[in-house]
């Protein structure tokens, strides 16, 4: 029953890539948009169907299908669907972007379902390289593209080095638990460093705010929302599946999470530029995810996955709004003064997204943080949980400024409508943030199953 559906799934992937390349030649924007939406929706349906059959297997020897990989595949597909909307609305070169996005998606799905470190590597390259070109396509973001490229290549170098050592140390690149050797401990650390770029972990992220700010907002949304999720999918698989016996590697993760949280939160305090502010806040959110990973327990990991899920939709939603503001030449906190007068619903949505990142109850951000902190407490990392709590309080300070600014009393503001597609994206992200905040049990079941699968 499942295998035919897998064939359908792969055929859809092929259709996505080939269709996009083919239509790129024709350069018909609406046609390509329709194709992307249709295929992505069908992909979504096929993945859900496969998930519903509940089997776990390795397909054709390279694509592992299980509750962990399917969870991420669902996230990636929905994320790309939303990104596709934003590309269509905002990008000048939609056709190229859609094609590059399709390639990225293939890379992400490979990362999610990989059986060995090599496929993770290849998948990640397929994620990051098209993004470099996407940024390059936008005008005035050459510098961001260059920086992205440098970070990606450093990451490739480190990753390759780690793989070379891994081959020597373990004799295999399969995602299986490795017996403790001293060399492999170094390998684990280098893997963490290599993945530090995609997951925006301090200090491998210091160029990231630059890149996020320099790229157009619709691409920042993809980078910070979806690509980062892919990075975490890779990091989690390598750390938990291969290096679960290396406790000190997880100590490194714990320390990195502290640095990442403090770096992101403190650097965000003085930001006036909205996109850069969100870049720093996204970095600090990555720190919370690392707390969950550092517990190396199923509960902590489930919390981390929940937080990844929460962050993805919040970030895409926020950046959709920022992209819209950007088209109206509004970039800083002062520029959005009185936004509530111009577009009440947008201001409300942005407020809720930010409150969710702070950890307002009845939003996904609260549930994610609660699960992470409780996982940390139960995993004996009380100090890390307390540092996380302190950080989530610091974050109130910089989210308060844009919120206050939006609701400032500005006269002479006329109502401004938001493009329909963007509203759809924002509304969907907001709906998910609130729905799974009020009723998180289904999503908790998904992430718990995904985490349990890695530890099985």
């Amino acid at each position: 029953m499942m295998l035919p559906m897998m064939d359908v799934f792969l055929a859809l992937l092929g259709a996505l890539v080939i269709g996009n390349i083919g239509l790129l030649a024709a350069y018909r924007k609406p046609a390509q948009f329709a194709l992307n939406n249709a295929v992505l929706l069908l992909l979504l349906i096929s993945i859900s169907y496969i998930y519903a059959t509940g089997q776990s297997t390795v397909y054709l020897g390279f694509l592992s299908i299980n509750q962990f990989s399917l969870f991420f595949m669902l996230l990636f597909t929905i994320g790309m669907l939303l990104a596709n909307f934003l590309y269509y609305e905002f990008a000048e070169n939609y056709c190229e972007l859609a094609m590059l996005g399709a390639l990225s998606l293939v890379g992400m799905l490979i990362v999610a379902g990989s059986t060995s470190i090599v496929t993770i590597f290849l998948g990640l390259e397929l994620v990051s390289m098209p993004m470099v070109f996407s940024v390059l396509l936008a005008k005035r973001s050459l510098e961001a593209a260059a920086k992205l490229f440098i970070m990606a290549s450093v990451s490739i170098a480190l990753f390759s080095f780690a793989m070379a050592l891994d081959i020597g140390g373990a004799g295999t690149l399969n995602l299986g638990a490795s017996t403790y050797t001293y060399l492999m401990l170094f390998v684990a650390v280098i893997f963490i460093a290599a993945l530090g770029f995609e997951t925006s972990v301090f200090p491998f992220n210091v160029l990231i705010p630059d890149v996020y700010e320099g790229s157009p907002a619709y691409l920042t949304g993809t980078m910070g929302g979806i690509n980062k999720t892919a990075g975490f999918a890779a990091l989690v698989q390598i750390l938990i599946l291969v290096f679960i016996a290396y406790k000190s590697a997880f100590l490194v993760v714990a320390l990195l999470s502290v640095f990442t949280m403090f770096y992101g939160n403190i650097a965000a305090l003085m930001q006036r530029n909205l996109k850069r502010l969100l870049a720093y806040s996204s970095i600090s959110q990555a720190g919370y995810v690392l707390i969950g990973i550092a517990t190396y327990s199923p509960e902590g990991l489930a919390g981390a996955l929940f937080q990844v899920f929460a962050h993805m939709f919040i970030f895409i939603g926020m950046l959709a709004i920022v992209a819209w503001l950007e088209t109206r030449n509004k970039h800083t906190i002062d520029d959005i003064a009185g936004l509530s007068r111009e577009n009440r619903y947008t201001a409300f949505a942005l407020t809720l997204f930010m409150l969710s990142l702070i950890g307002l109850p009845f939003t996904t951000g609260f549930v994610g943080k609660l699960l992470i902190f409780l996982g940390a407490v139960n995993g004996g990392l009380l100090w890390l949980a307390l540092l996380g709590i302190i950080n989530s309080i610091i974050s109130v300070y910089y989210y308060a400024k844009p919120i206050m600014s939006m609701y400032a009393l500005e006269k002479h503001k006329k109502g401004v409508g938001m493009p329909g597609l963007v509203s759809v994206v924002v509304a969907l992200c907001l709906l998910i943030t609130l729905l799974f905040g009020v009723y998180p049990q289904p999503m908790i079941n998904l992430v718990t199953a995904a985490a349990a699968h890695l530890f099985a």
Partner: protein
Amino acid sequence: MIALMLMVPLVIALALVLVLPQGISKFIAMAGALAGLALLPFIGSGTYSVPWFSSAGLAFGLVTSVSQINLLLLAMVLGIAPLILLYSFGFMDTHSQQRRFYSEMLAFEAAMVLFAMSGSFITMFIAWEFLSLTSYLLIGFWNEKESANRAARKAITIVFIGDIAILAAIAVMTGAFGTLTFSGVIAALPGNSAAALVVAVLLGIAVLTKSAQFPFQEWLTDAMEGPAPVSAFLHSTTMVKAGVFLVMVLLPIFSSAGILPVISALSLITVAVATMNALKEMHVKRVIAYSTIQELGLMLFAVASGAVLAGVFLFFAQSFYKALLFFSSGAMMKATGEEDIRRISGLRRNNALYIATLFGVLSLAGFVPFDGFFAGSALGSAFSTNLVYYVVLNVFGILTSFYMFRWLFFTSRKEASAGTAVGFEMLPRSMVAGAIVLGIAALLASFAFPYFRYLFEMPYPVYSALGTSTADELVVLALAFAGAVASYAAFRKGLALRSRAATAIIYSKALFNGLYDISAAFILGIAAGAATFEHWLDVGFRGIGMSVYYSSGFIRRLSYGEINLYVLTLSVATMAMIALVYFVR
């Protein structure tokens, strides 16, 4: 009916206010508040748990636990809310941001209702967090004023210290007790005294921050930057009482950890500091704010020193006259456009408001037959065996009467103030109506005293009965009278104003401050230290952020894209990580 149903009308009203046109916001808010009040009699007592989600064997739910003390707070919140909204009809009439105001008020009320019936620490924390957030928004409501923004930031900084403390306590309790319901934690206390101490200290910090107790009292007076209905609702009758309420409900945790003496000492210091501040304060609303801090200190002192029921009665009685006095202050500010009581005059031109205000002052000062009198004498009787406490409490009593009558005498002077503002005669009816209802309530609340005395039950055994003796009643009355007479002589008859020296003292803030400083140098030092702590916290955050942003330092150059530095950092970091695991293995 389960207690959570009380939130339904409020949440529905909140959603409607957000969606429907601005013009009818106030009516929806009022309807929601009234519907919430109407549902109150149908609330059954007992513990309910509404399952929310479960993860890794730990189930989370909204746990509500309703006993008499919870019902008391619920009744206070739901009963006063419609009056506050009625007052707001008049007070906020010229303000164009009606939707924002009423939605924030409704969100606050819903959070307060959830807090009043919470039965587990998770539920309590959720409500607590919403309270912090909505109070931040409401204090900074007039956010075009920089002072309002600063006050809101100060309030939330202090209050967030409490939030961190509660979260930390929750983390400790999850690890130590494995349960987060109030009853479960109280039952698990004897087994783990170390954890109990940590939890009690953390919760104690949260209590002190929320109820504006020493050394965290400063935020409450700054919070007077918010609109008057907000001060009346949040900063006198409901939110600031959350801390005291927590001690009332969770008294076994505090007593088993043995930190009650610390809490009563701190609250007594608060009373002293607040009374002295009230004596020198001339801002019409801040006087009332200091008096609120003082009474919160008294409540906490009573509860922590064993006179639980006296504390509970003060907790109840204070709501009416304190809200009323805030109503009057707001009305005076609106009528005259002035904020200093030395420049406000002519309160008597609006007789209804004057009489209501008089009721409030009489009640706060402790005149029979108002509820403040019964609260004062019950408090006195509870400590009549301890001479030191008895004398101290009564000294504060006479001082309270003195500064409150000064407040009244100044503002009800005859001469007209030359303001361009509304004027006392033109005050909206709804503002005056709210004040009158509260004045009558302050009178009627006296009749509740026998109920508290004979029928009220705390969720745990209470050993000291509530009662008054004739002697204590006479003492309270005599002191209130003495304070009033002294105030009358000094300010109404103008004895103080006639003598040049006294005028200089009253009108020169420097002299008063000097007096105050000498008498309270030590305590003031600590209080000022705590006040500056917030300041430094703020400065610290900003400074660090600023140094990252503006300095030509390493991180800034990093973040602004020097590639060689990036690669250098990256390799240093990787090597540091490798070195770390080399040593840790």
